[in-house]
């Protein structure tokens, strides 16, 4: 039975967050910081949460998205605003290419093989770009000058401060809607079945490879769009060592597992908690974030595998608010 009620709390939380950012002075940047983490959690959740497969090369998808936008803005600047549209197209195209290459090969196999295949994606791509000196190699793509020359400094500023943020907000909202759509759709049912027991799902006639690939591609495209907006448009540079940094993969995994894998509200709650904590902790503990995240992830996996929303859902069963939590 289709249940779209959980969309209400989700949209309410989005609205509250954006309202805080817009109305409280000085809160816009912190809210965008948190929304970035919500976004990478939501995108990863569509794959990791729904299939139970781990993509250790997750950040590479944000990376290729960042490169898609970067290449368009750097080398096709003469298209004017059209370059941004081209950037979105390229980001999506790169994500499709990468997810089809990796997913098409490794998703035919079981989880362990897929995880093994993804662990090299990140480093492999980084070294390809650096080693073959593609798109500036290890020097990356620096856009601030190019953008100022092409669009004037006022519009270039507007692009990186306003357009990039609105773009990210749109991605967050859309990926939330996509998540609940999948949960209520035959794709979601098929994914649920294969996550619980892949062999049984196969015997029931579900084309498991197809549904895994669908989830992987959706997750990858959203991730690439996050990279294109929150990184390239906002920061106006793309460095291979930044956009292929494994830390973001770990953060996204922690957000999904903390909030509750495979749920709608999980990555949202996880992302808010993580984003707020990081915003305040990174001032106190610079450089120690992975040292804190790693044991946290171990503790969640061993003691608390269902995450916050999974736990809350169990507690709220048989109450009237249950159908609003998903």
């Amino acid at each position, binding site marked *: 039975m289709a249940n779209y009620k959980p969309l209400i709390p989700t949209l309410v939380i989005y609205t509250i967050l954006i309202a805080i950012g817009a109305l409280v002075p000085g809160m816009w940047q912190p809210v965008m910081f948190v929304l970035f983490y919500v976004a990478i959690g939501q995108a990863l959740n569509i794959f*990791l949460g729904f299939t*139970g*497969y*781990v993509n*250790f090369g997750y950040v590479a998808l944000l990376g290729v998205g960042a490169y898609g936008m970067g290449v368009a803005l750097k080398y096709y600047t003469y298209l004017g605003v059209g370059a941004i549209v081209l950037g979105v197209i390229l980001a999506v195209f790169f994500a499709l290419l990468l997810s089809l*290459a*990796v997913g098409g*090969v*490794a998703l035919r*196999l*079981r*989880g*362990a*093989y897929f*995880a*093994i*295949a993804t*662990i*090299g*994606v990140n*480093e*492999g*791509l980084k*070294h*390809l770009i*650096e*080693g*073959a*000196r593609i798109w500036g190699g290890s020097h990356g793509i620096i856009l601030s000058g190019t953008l100022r020359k092409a669009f004037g400094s006022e519009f270039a500023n507007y692009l990186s401060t306003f357009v990039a943020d609105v773009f990210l907000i749109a991605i967050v909202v859309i990926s939330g809607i996509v998540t609940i759509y999948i949960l209520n759709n035959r794709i979601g049912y098929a994914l649920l079945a294969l996550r619980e027991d892949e062999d049984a799902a196969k015997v029931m006639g579900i084309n498991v490879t197809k549904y895994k690939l669908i989830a992987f591609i959706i997750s990858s495209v959203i991730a690439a769009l996050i990279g294109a907006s929150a990184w390239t448009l906002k920061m106006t540079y793309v460095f291979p060592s930044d956009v292929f940094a*494994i830390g973001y993969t*770990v953060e996204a*995994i922690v957000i999904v*597992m903390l909030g509750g*894998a495979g749920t709608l509200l999980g990555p949202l709650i996880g992302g808010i908690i993580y984003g707020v904590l990081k915003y305040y902790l990174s001032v106190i503990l610079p450089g*120690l974030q*992975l*040292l804190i*995240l*790693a*044991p946290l*992830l*171990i503790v969640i*996996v*061993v003691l608390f*595998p269902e995450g916050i929303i999974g736990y809350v859902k169990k507690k709220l069963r048989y109450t009237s608010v249950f159908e609003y939590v998903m």
Partner: protein
Amino acid sequence: MIAEQLAANLLYGAILGGVYGLATMGLSLIFGVLRIVNVGHGAFIMIGAFTAYWMFILYSIAPVVSIPIALVIGLALGFVIFYSVIKRLVDAPELSTLLATFAIGLLIEEAAKVAWGSDYVGYSWDIGSLSLPFTTIPLTKILAFVSSVVIAAVVYLWFQKTKLGAAVRAVVEDRDGAMVCGINVNRIFALSFSLGIGLTVLSGVLVTLFVPVGINVYMGGEYTLKAFVIAVLGGLASPWGAFYAGFIFGLLENGSYTLLGLIPGVEPFGLTRFVSFAMLLIILLIKPSGLLGGE
């Protein structure tokens, strides 16, 4: 000129391949017995490399003597990790074990960074070299090769000739059947996990015998990727397959390094890493059960 260079590189590749093979055996052993992929594999190689480095720098202990020291450190680490984390996850979904081993690897790396910093370090232990018509090989590299072959042979004999080794093979074959026969499967899990980690830490010492520089807390990532390529090549669950596959990988890697170096305008070193990744995808596409038969 190129032919000589290629011959030298292939010889180095074969020698390095032996080290790679041993560095992957632990991964395959753990997967074969516990069905757990140790995603944090490289971090343990890093611990071994630092063991050799600190023993040499602080106490002037020859790196060869560090081999048993590293094994003991690895066994202890393996026991602690097994009883604190892995034991609770043996029957958990694959997702849990993948995330847990990944996080353990990160934790080890980050803790090492706090303790030792993130600088690249190295040592120089010169014991002469062997002259061949087309190249000279430092004896340390030959020592690394010989050690890894000897250690692999000892592990093989232990598996084949001792009662405990037979018990481990029984668990690999059929977990429930082994339990019915009175084998304490949990103890075998603990033993295999520790032995797997022990072999991996030990191989870190051999890695530094081959290349005594570039020791860094993040050096493991590269070896994790290589070990995965090798393990898949060898059939993932078979330590012996892994050992042979190590040779193939060493030859392919060093051969491609020479050939990539011929292309103007590229950095062959970075590209060999992309080659390993591409190779992994190709093997998974063509024959995921391993080129050497495997399971």
